[in-house]
């Protein structure tokens, strides 16, 4: 893969991101409901002139294209606007929530890969075995269970019935490790704060399992089906004919080929999850991006929603780009 290819592929992202900003802005512009009324809601004594003046100050009286231009210029300077409700920069709000979402996503993805890849590979290699049947049935169950339902069931069982795991938040109040990266697992390890580490892990288990389950199911199915194709390839028989054992053939010759589709699917999924999972974060009161968006929608905090949607879209596009790069790395045939 040449540098020119990467740069070229990267430059292609620009018009996409630009398009995204336009759509996001237009949606917010066209949404019924007046942000200024939101701001002054509950503040008695604000007159019609007050509202009008405030609108002018925010530039809301300007025509669409001027407003959009200001929005884009702001973006380029890293300015995502001011939260209408919380009255602080949206950027700071998003940044403060990002680590929670990253941590949850990373652990969920890790959990799903640890389960899905071995199960997928073994199911394919031992097709129709009991393990294959269990794995396939499990995957079907996993994709069919809605996240909120699974989350609630886990919560009821582990949190309330057996009372072994915490069911909300990232860590008990006051136990937060010293802030370095904002990722509690990393920070607590760096500072050697083991009680915080333990607490953070315990809080992560239920939401990560909830989030990881559907992804594990999907990953397992992709891995299984691509491995099924791979096990019948001539190069697998040839590798056996060289004297490799069944396991060696699967690991050295099968996995590299079978994981190409898996990696693509997983990278795209990470893109979705990094946007913050609104349902799981809401169910488990997880202070991440997803929760922020849900709250902001309730509060009609338009600027926050706008910025969050933008962040989602950019993350997704970026993960797409990375998935492409990884794909070309794994598959020498498309190396350009």
């Amino acid at each position, binding site marked *: 893969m040449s540098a020119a290819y990467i740069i070229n592929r990267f430059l292609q992202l620009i018009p996409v991101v630009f398009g995204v900003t336009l759509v996001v802005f237009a949606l917010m512009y066209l949404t019924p409901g007046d942000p200024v009324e939101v701001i002054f809601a509950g503040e008695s004594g604000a007159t019609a002139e007050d509202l009008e003046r405030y609108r002018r100050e925010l530039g809301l009286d300007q025509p669409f294209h001027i407003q959009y231009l200001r929005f884009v210029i702001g973006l380029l300077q890293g300015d995502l606007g001011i939260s209408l409700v919380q009255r602080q920069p949206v950027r700071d709000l998003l940044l403060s929530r990002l680590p929670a979402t990253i941590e949850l996503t990373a652990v969920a993805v890790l959990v799903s890969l640890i389960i899905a890849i071995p199960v997928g590979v073994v199911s394919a290699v031992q097709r129709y075995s009991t393990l294959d049947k269990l794995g396939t049935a499990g995957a079907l169950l996993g994709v069919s269970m809605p996240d909120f339902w699974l989350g609630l069931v886990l919560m009821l069982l582990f949190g309330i019935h057996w009372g072994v795991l915490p069911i909300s938040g990232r860590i008990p109040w006051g136990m937060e490790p010293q802030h370095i990266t904002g990722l509690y697992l990393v920070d607590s390890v760096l500072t050697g704060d083991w009680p915080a580490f333990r607490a953070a892990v315990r809080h992560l288990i239920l939401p990560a399992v909830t989030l990881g389950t559907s992804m594990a199911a999907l990953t397992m199915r992709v891995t299984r089906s691509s491995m099924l194709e791979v096990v019948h390839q001539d190069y697998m*028989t*040839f*590798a056996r004919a060289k*004297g490799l054992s069944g396991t060696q053939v699967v690991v*050295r010759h099968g996995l590299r*080929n079978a994981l190409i589709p898996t990696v693509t699917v997983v990278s795209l999924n990470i893109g979705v999850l990094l946007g913050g999972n609104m349902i799981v974060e809401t169910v488990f009161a997880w202070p991440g991006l997803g929760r922020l968006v849900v709250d902001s929608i309730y509060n009609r905090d338009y600027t926050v929603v706008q910025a969050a949607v933008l962040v989602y879209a950019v993350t997704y596009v970026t993960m797409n780009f990375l998935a492409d790069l990884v794909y070309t790395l*794994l598959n020498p045939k498309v190396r350009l």
Partner: protein
Amino acid sequence: MLQPVLDVRDLATYFFTERGVVRAVDGVSFRLYPGETLGVVGESGCGKSMTALSIMGLVPRPGRIVAGEIRLMGEDLVGKPDRELRRLRGSRMAMIFQDPLTTLNPVLRVGQQVTESIRIHYGDGTWSGGSRRWSWLADPLGLRRRRIAWERAVEMLDKVGIPAPSERMRAYPHEMSGGMRQRIMIAIALSCSPALLLADEPTTALDVTIQAQILDLMRRLQEEMGTSILLITHDFGVVSELCDRVMVMYAGKVVETGPLDAILNTPRHPYTQGLLASIPRLGDRSYRLKPIEGTVPELHALPPGCSYCTRCPVADEYCAAVAPQLKEISPHHHVACHKVAAAPAMAGEGVPS
């Protein structure tokens, strides 16, 4: 008397499918002597590949060897645990396949694929170039093993006629031509100097000029290394180029076997005659292809008698009722046909070269 490299007796490999038992290989016996090439011919589905895979111990499920003996240099392979067969695969016996593009792993570099079998067999006592059992003590990180495997691989690539072998080690299979890839496959198969090479249609996927080069290469390497070859093919042209003896298979059984000359010039089984008659002849413009009428019967519903009786021009009720046994009709020439006396040799019919 010379000990055969390979001695197969009454080999039967069946597939146990939902539609019934498929007798892919049904009582096949043959011997292969050092340095000899035995051609196996027959229509698609007659069990040629399964015979070879049975020898390697690589019959895919739901198939398995149900009876017979396979002696490789005197040692019976049937029923051996996979761990022991693994030591022999790639070192004492090797196999190459039809399509080098799908047989080489697309995501691994050529070098990795060529060194692999050498590294596996280095030090397991099967490869003459490798040292013995405790060699890893002197080479705990396997560096020496790696270096030796690399050098041997480069040597092999050179031997099979790959230009600039050290550089080609770093290439991927798709960066090479079909002929080059087939040479790589041959290099891999012969890297541990096996006594037996099973070649399953090694030239079918290649175009004619490349075919000739690959056949030349195989002949040269065979002379150099003394390998015995079981050559599976559809192509009597290939057979006449390379083989000392020929075995004709039909529906899982051997119907005729004998020296190359006898099979090509005086074939006695009606099936062999039919096969030879269906070969287009170079330079004969008026030639019309005479395919054998009918199709191979379903292998799970074979007639009780001769499998070929449904298509045979000279078959009668007796053929349909009683299966013929192989019998020697002239020195080393065996035919399984009740009508052998009634099936005259096709005099003067040679094979195009």
